[in-house]
């Protein structure tokens, strides 16, 4: 699990390559954008596309030159989406539908997209069939449970393109056909920044987390949040943060999230609550306490939720899936498909990925695929500056939450006191993707399921 570690020096080398590749890619994207924005009677020309897929430990840069002849008007691209929930859920499926509309809007060529919502995982096959009947050439399946069926259909229909969200099977990983890619918008860096805000604001020194399921994705988000909270709180007071986790065993369950949040506040005196649940219920609870005169804070999740807690909202993590989708639209439209396994973090899908000075930081503004929700002015300016600095540094992967730098120079220990990440180490993709331990500051054991 800990294999594939690299030293900081090597990492910087990788980061430099990424930056260079980024510049090349930006140029190529610019050229492509200019090309796409041109008149429909464009003369035949050669397009070079460069794609960069960066992880902490692995960097794959694939360059492919495609010569194509475009004569007359571009062909209409038809894209199909399969959603696991209703588009009105305000969380996951709503986010994907917003991404779909964003990609359609920014594509610049004729495109028609359509979707099937609330598709049970067992019925994804027939949903894909009906989308193909309508002419969809590119199909996005947006739930982990759709993964195997998507791979099956990719095998069956090699002339169609498939992108699966939140899974690990793709042509790039070698465990699916070449016409299948994988993509995910990763939040753990943003959860760490939320944690910094939490540690800066907490008066009780106790923070809470309403979790959906004890799976690696949620566990690494909880750990990142708690590490951030401990960083800021310990720097402020010299004491370690205390963190509590309450599980609801649902992705969508506003009334359960409410009960869990109230238990954290009233039972354990938590005054900052983060959550993984697809509605603003926890933020609404925090807002109710604020109105009663008790300072309780919470965050946005997936969408900007400030309207649901104008006083209680500190910041949060927001995803715009649009740029990922747009990338695939372009690949299919220009016949330049390469199977990829995209893990989009801060800095990815931005026009350029080098950091800005803190004063000009874009933290809190929409950019790229994952970005920070606007910062509440109630956060002391010292901590706002640190949040912005870390946000900018993470664009270049110069800072990693799961490293001793993220924990005030201390090694990161689990609840048994075992050192999981020591000086000079960073968590890599594999470690993050299989995280099954809690950091030492969390009081409850991790449920085994």
């Amino acid at each position, binding site marked *: 699990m800990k294999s594939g570690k690299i030293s900081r020096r090597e990492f910087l080398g990788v980061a430099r390559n990424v930056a260079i590749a980024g510049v090349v890619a930006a140029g190529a994207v610019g050229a492509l954008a200019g090309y796409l924005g041109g008149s429909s009677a464009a003369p035949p020309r050669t397009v070079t596309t460069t794609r960069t897929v960066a992880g902490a430990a692995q960097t794959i840069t694939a360059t492919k030159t495609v010569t194509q002849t475009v004569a007359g008007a571009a062909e209409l691209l038809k894209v199909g989406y399969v959603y696991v929930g209703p588009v*009105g859920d305000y969380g996951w499926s709503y986010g994907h539908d917003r991404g779909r509309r964003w990609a359609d809007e920014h594509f610049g060529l004729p495109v028609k997209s359509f979707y099937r919502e609330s598709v049970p995982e067992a019925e994804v096959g027939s949903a894909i069939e009906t989308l193909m009947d309508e002419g969809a050439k590119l199909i996005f399946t947006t739930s982990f449970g759709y993964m195997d069926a998507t791979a099956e259909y990719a095998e069956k229909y090699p002339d169609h393109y498939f992108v699966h969200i939140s899974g690990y099977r793709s042509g790039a990983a070698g465990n699916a056909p070449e016409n299948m890619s994988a993509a995910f918008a990763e939040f753990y860096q943003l959860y760490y920044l939320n944690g910094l805000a939490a540690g800066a604001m907490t008066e009780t020194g106790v923070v809470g987390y309403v979790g959906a399921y004890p799976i690696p994705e949620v566990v690494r988000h909880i750990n990142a949040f708690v590490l951030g909270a401990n960083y800021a709180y310990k720097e402020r007071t010299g004491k370690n943060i205390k963190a509590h986790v309450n599980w609801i065993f649902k992705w969508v369950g*506003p*009334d359960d999230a409410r009960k869990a949040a109230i*238990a954290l506040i009233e039972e354990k005196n938590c005054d900052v609550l983060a959550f993984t649940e697809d509605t603003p219920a926890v933020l609404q609870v925090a807002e109710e306490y604020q109105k009663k005169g008790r300072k309780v804070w919470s965050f946005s999740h997936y969408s900007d939720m400030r309207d649901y807690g104008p006083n209680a909202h500190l910041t949060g993590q927001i995803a715009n899936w649009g740029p990922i989708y747009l990338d695939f639209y372009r690949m299919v439209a220009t016949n330049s498909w390469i199977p990829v396994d995209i893990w989009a973090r801060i800095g990815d899908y931005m026009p350029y990925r080098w950091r800005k000075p803190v004063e000009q930081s874009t933290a809190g503004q929409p950019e790229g695929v994952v970005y920070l929700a606007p910062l509440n002015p109630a956060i002391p300016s010292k901590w706002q500056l640190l949040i912005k600095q870390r946000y900018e540094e993470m664009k270049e992967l110069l800072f990693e939450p799961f490293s001793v730098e993220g924990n005030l120079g201390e090694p990161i220990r689990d609840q048994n006191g075992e050192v999981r990440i020591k000086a000079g180490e960073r968590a890599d993709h594999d470690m993050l993707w299989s995280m099954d331990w809690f950091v030492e500051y969390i009081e*409850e*054991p991790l449920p085994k399921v």
Partner: protein
Amino acid sequence: MIEWIESVLALTLQVGTVYLLASLGEIYAERSGILNLGLEGIMIMGAASSFIFTLAYGHLAAITVSIIVGVLMSLILALMAVYMRLNQTVAGLALTMLGLGLSGFLASPEVRKVILLALNPSLPEKFLAIQEAPKLPEIPVPTLSEIPVIGCFFRQNALVYFSYAAAPLMWFILFKTRPGLSLRSVGENPAAADAMGVSVFKVRCVATMVSGGFAGLAGAYLFLGFQPFWQEGLTAGKGFIALSLVILSTWNPLRALLGAYLFGGVEVIQYRLQLFGLGALSPYLLAMLPYLVAIAALVAVSIGSVRKRIGAPASLGIPYSREE
């Protein structure tokens, strides 16, 4: 310790009120011989209409509309089960599916926007997209709300207070008045009641409408009084828990009061136990608790002798026809 009890009890009352309101009406329907399995669908329609109408016209209008919508929905069941003498289980489940689908459609972003603009063209832009509505305010009763422990009974919203009053009132009407006697006799032996001059059709229709009205109100309470965020399918099986509560309460409104708070308490405690480290042992077992209680109640009632002693309505679910 006192603070802890108050904290748990206050939330228990809020959770239990959903079940209480829904089961009070259902008791009347079942006492008259009509099994209203459409509870879940009516509740969610009540929640959806309370959401839309609160944004357009405010709380009072929203609650009124939710009750009306509930009554209208139950009229469909009355038509099918009382007049057409269809299978009540099938008719009720059809109503549940209708409610779940229709509420999802009516409250979906685009359709909701059209409805809201039709209801109130001067509505601010912000209200057209938002998925929450202002919550019902808590109205603390002076002095009573300051008593330790039981003070939390008097720091609730208007619908919770209404449920405190409704349970004894509905018990009184059912067991101590002549209309209540007619209602119970229709559920026990409709032929005899008919011979005595009681209109079986009329009584059953009214009882079904009462259950619909209360279910609509329960949905409105769930949304406005407990968790004000609209979500497709937000009742999440609460209607069916209320149905089992009716049996647990042996068709008695006062026992329903206790049962509702028992169910509410189990749900609240499960999130407290987790923080004592108990959740990690078997989280799914804790999540199962409310359903275990419901199953135990159903099993107890299915035993013949128990059934006779607790007085299940003898004609529950059996359509009545005069010609037979």
